[in-house]
């Protein structure tokens, strides 16, 4: 057997039984050829050392946080959300950041609520209407610059936002006081945490929260009127995901 022969058959023989029962001519050559002997022993060393690498790396804690949030969103975690006994702390180098442990489960709960709303008992398919039931003009194709009849059903807050972003925040706040319903308990808690931990961001978060809540309400109202509209249901789910994203961005920032 030559060195070339050894290299050719090595893939077949190297991983044989631990007692290394090789053909006689192979063994004879390897014993007498330093180069092939080195090759075999070095490849075996690499193979054995590689096994040490299994299960040595630790994932960041955020991986579990994300998994848990997704499990809740999908309803696989079915325990009631009791007062959390342990904080979800994401360790940092300084360890001096705040923890907002409840935001992750709330974000996940929002997704779960959205999933429930969307996937809840589907009403029998109804004849799809050619136009929404809200009072609108004819659905003629229009240029982007023209007034859209869809604005008829937008909330005043959304109209204010569309009219021009720079003034939207101030306008939105004023309009919100007059028109928008108050925030839910979770939203109140969320804004309270933001006020405490990142007060300069409060106005931004509040305006965005009002806008996404308005989107959810608007879409929910449409879905209630048109239960067979799958795309609208998906938009409702998207709206909940937007709210969960808002919570998640806040979680990443204020913790």
């Amino acid at each position, binding site marked *: 057997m030559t060195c070339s022969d050894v290299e050719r058959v090595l893939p077949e023989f190297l991983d044989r039984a631990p007692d290394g029962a090789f053909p006689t001519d192979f063994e004879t050559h390897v014993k007498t050829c330093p180069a092939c002997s080195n090759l075999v022993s070095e490849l075996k060393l690499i193979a054995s050392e590689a096994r040490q690498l299994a299960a040595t790396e630790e994932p960041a804690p955020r991986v579990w946080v994300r998994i848990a949030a997704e499990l809740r969103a999908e309803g696989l975690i079915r325990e009631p959300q009791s007062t959390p006994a342990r904080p979800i702390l994401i360790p940092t*180098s300084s360890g001096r950041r705040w923890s907002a442990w409840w935001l992750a489960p709330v974000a996940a709960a929002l997704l779960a609520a959205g999933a429930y709303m969307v996937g809840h008992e589907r009403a029998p398919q109804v004849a799809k209407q050619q136009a929404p039931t809200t009072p609108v003009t004819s659905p*003629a194709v229009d240029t982007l610059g023209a007034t859209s009849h*869809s604005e008829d059903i937008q909330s005043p807050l959304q109209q204010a936002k569309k009219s021009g972003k720079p003034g939207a925040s101030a306008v939105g706040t004023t309009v919100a006081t007059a028109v928008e319903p108050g925030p839910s308990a979770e939203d109140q808690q969320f804004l309270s945490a933001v006020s405490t931990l990142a007060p300069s961001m409060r106005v931004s978060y509040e305006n965005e929260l009002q806008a996404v809540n308005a989107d959810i309400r608007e879409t929910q109202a449409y879905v209630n009127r048109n239960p067979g509209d799958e795309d609208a249901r998906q*938009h409702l789910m998207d709206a909940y995901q*937007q709210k969960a994203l808002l919570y998640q961005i806040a979680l990443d920032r204020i913790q």
Partner: protein
Amino acid sequence: MASLWHASLRQNTVVTLVLATCLASAASAETKKEYRFTVGPNASVSVDTQYGAISVKPGSRNQVVVTATLKSDKVEVDKLQNGNRIEIASHLLQGADQQSGQIDYEVLIPPDATLNLRSSTGPLSAEHLQGDLSLEGTDAVVNIRNVDNGHVNVRTMGGPITLSDVRNGHVDIASISGDVHLKSVTGPLVQAKSGSGKIFYDGDFGSGGDYKFTTHTGDIEALAPGNVSADFSAHSVLGQVQNDFPLQPKHSRFSVEAGRSFFGTVGKAASEVVLRTFSGKIRLKQR
């Protein structure tokens, strides 16, 4: 075994230089500091600042250079190196506000490094890179250009997002109210979502990819060349749609409502393009 591992890493990879330069100013003591880290292949760099800009460009293949401009002494830089993973974060001290707590970062990284950036105010920018990018800004303006092969993931609350010349990776953009501008962005998966922000796309929907643009109230506008090859689906629940392309009709799960939907293929339908909005407008324009 883990401790030997870390000791070995420290011995082999950490070289840090601190260069402090005091810049006198009437209002506050602005300080510039530089940090250098030696890294191996597949480095991971994370920069997180509450207030301040982060700008990232490619540097040498085995070094990360961070230049931090601290606006006052009410903020400091936390830094951590664990092997090939570099973590930089601004740490606000007592009494810091948006002005005094600001640190602007300029970062040079190996072109194929993985990058994570986070800032509330921004702006955030990254260019000429090949690794995976993950950027998150609250109201930060985000600008990414010339990225090849890397996955790009961007999240903002209200900050506008602009991507240009991003190719061959997965692109995943989400904003609550920020506008999204995509120019010459192609890849196997390109998806953008905004609640009330607008989505603008200017490109050829190439690479046989999946393109999904979704808004709630924001408008979607796409500009593509006449020789585009794509299967288009567009639907606005309450808004209007307009299309400049002669589409070959095909069966779709949506019932086709005049003025609210259009479906069909152009060319060989190599890519799939799905444009969805709840109440915004959709416009597909031919260049």
